[in-house]
């Protein structure tokens, strides 16, 4: 079964069509990356998959569950990291992880195990007992990424996961994602970092103006444009 199937997905905001007829699949255990210039509808697509926005037309299913009709089931399978997410400022990092683990997993012991994993993944160590309002942007982002993956979701939807992170932290997050994918989690990410995409993804979907221009492995795309620079592929596709 595919982890994700999007069929002719359309999203119209009042008088503007942000996504116009998107069709793609994500296989289980795969890392799939959506790329494309700013404002082409990547985040809008991810929000529809995360059950936050209702598609204007078309359909999306996550492990066979429709995101509109079976939104509750879908929410139990996914974990979504918004592109500009924040955390509760008056909680400490540890309290935040515990709260989120309980919200997503409900069950006490499972949540505790997730918190332990989260504390390890975020790499904040002693800072976890400080209030989140004292965190830097990158620290908060690391906490949020740990939050998103600690519950071991079937499908993790990460909108620009490493934006705002330094080179070392970005590298570690990428390694974590790759490791978790190896353990069975499916990832759908969006990114502007070609190096990251080349390192991570099995396949990439290049979007422009709400449409999918190409959807293949980085190697295949490079071959198609006979270059070994993914950025060149990107530029030639979107121009």
């Amino acid at each position, binding site marked *: 079964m595919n982890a994700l199937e999007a069929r002719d997905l359309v999203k119209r905001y009042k008088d503007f069509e942000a996504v116009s007829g998107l069709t793609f699949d994500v296989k289980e255990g795969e890392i799939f990356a959506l790329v494309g210039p700013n404002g082409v509808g990547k985040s809008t697509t991810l*929000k529809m998959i995360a059950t*936050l926005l*209702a598609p204007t037309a078309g359909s999306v299913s996550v492990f066979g569950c429709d995101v509109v009709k079976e939104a509750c089931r879908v929410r139990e399978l*996914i974990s979504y990291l918004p592109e*500009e997410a924040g*955390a509760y400022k*008056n*909680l400490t990092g540890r309290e935040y992880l515990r709260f989120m683990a309980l919200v997503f997993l*409900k069950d*006490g012991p499972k949540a505790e195990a997730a918190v332990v994993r989260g504390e390890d993944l975020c790499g904040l160590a002693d800072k976890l007992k400080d209030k989140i309002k004292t965190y830097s942007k990158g620290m908060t982002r690391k906490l949020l990424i740990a939050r998103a993956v600690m519950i071991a979701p079937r499908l993790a939807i990460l909108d620009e996961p490493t934006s705002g992170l330094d080179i070392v932290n970005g590298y570690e997050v990428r390694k974590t994602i790759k490791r978790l994918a190896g353990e069975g989690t499916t990832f759908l990410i969006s990114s502007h970092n070609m190096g990251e995409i080349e390192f991570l993804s099995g396949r990439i979907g290049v979007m422009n103006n709400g449409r999918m221009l190409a959807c293949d492995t980085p190697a295949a795309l490079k071959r198609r444009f006979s270059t070994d620079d993914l950025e060149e592929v990107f530029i030639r596709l979107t121009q």
Partner: protein
Amino acid sequence: MSIFLVLVRKEVKELLTPQLVVSIAAMLFVFHVIGRSVGSHNKASASRNGVVIVDLDRSALSRRLSAALSRAECAVTHSPARDIGPALAAPEHDAESSFMLVPAGLERDLAAGRQSHVAFYSRFRKNASGLGPVMAASRTRKTLSLVSGELSSFVMERRLQGLSPGFVKDPAPAREFAVIGGRVEAVPVSHVVAFVQSQSYFFPMAVFFIIILSAQMIMTAVASEKENKTLETLLSSPIDRRMLVLSKLTASAFIAAVLSGGYMLGMRSFMSGIVGDAAPGAASSSGPALARLGLLITPSGYLMIGLSVLVCILCALAMAFILGLLAEDVKSIQAMMTPLVMVLMLSYLLPIFIDMSAANDGIKLILYAIPFTHAFLAPQNVMMGNGVQVLWGIAYQAAVFAAFVALAARLFSGEALLTLRLRFPKVR
């Protein structure tokens, strides 16, 4: 621990910041201190009930006036001055503000049946403010009527031999009765009014505070989730969205209850500091009569009032929740609060200034359409034996609450939450 409690605890942690607690505590303290100092000041100025007599008559009658004032616990000082000017200017009377000038020949004139004039001078202090001048005026009025009573007694004793002045002045003293719901009691109407007012004085204020505070709390709770971009994460979780709504309602109602409890304590010590123990005194002598009139609230009466207030708060919370959903961020809460505060003011103040039992139908309709009015009026209605109206009010408020919750839940589960925004023009 149940997930609901987890959610409520997180809301409380986010809302009840140390800054909030400190500022509330500081306010309580300030209220208390001001109340105490104003109270002791008022007592001091009340006891400073003195009058300076400039006696140009030096007769038996003028001595009688001075004695009567002394009996009435007035600190009488005699000025040796021969006119009011020097007495006012005399440095030893600097602290005095009441002066009485007894004209020469007063006794002779009255005995002969000629009108004369006793003059009273009240000196205003340069920086007089607050209750000072009001209390000075009421002291002067008392002195004045005491003196006038003494003078007419003097005349009556001379002219109406065989009749006591007391009888002539009020030959058939009035007896007052209050009638409430068919029950009749001999009790001064002023005592009834004072009692009803004292009972319904704190109450609407408390309700007002709770509503404003809890509305603000829940708006902050909702708007800050939006502003801090935590809402999307929460909405993508498998938690039932109605539970999210409910946990926010519960947490803000809880904090509002704690805060307004604090406010009311502060207010109480403030008011009792100012008013002292004088206020209930008037009514307490008529206590049994008031009880027989059914004015003392019974436990079931309190239950009705409590219920009315509860649904009122729930209504306000549901409304505020919706307004909070529409707010762009925490800053725009002020603007979002305005319509709620306006409506609240209307239903709080109008029944104070107009008599609902005599108001015209248009005003009544508007006021009763506002769910808050029913809670504000509940104590009066219960005291006046109008329980049916209170129950109807509760039913109406509950219906409004249900409608708003339905609307809130619809808004909260739709995507409008993430795409819909009300913008306010910037206020310059």
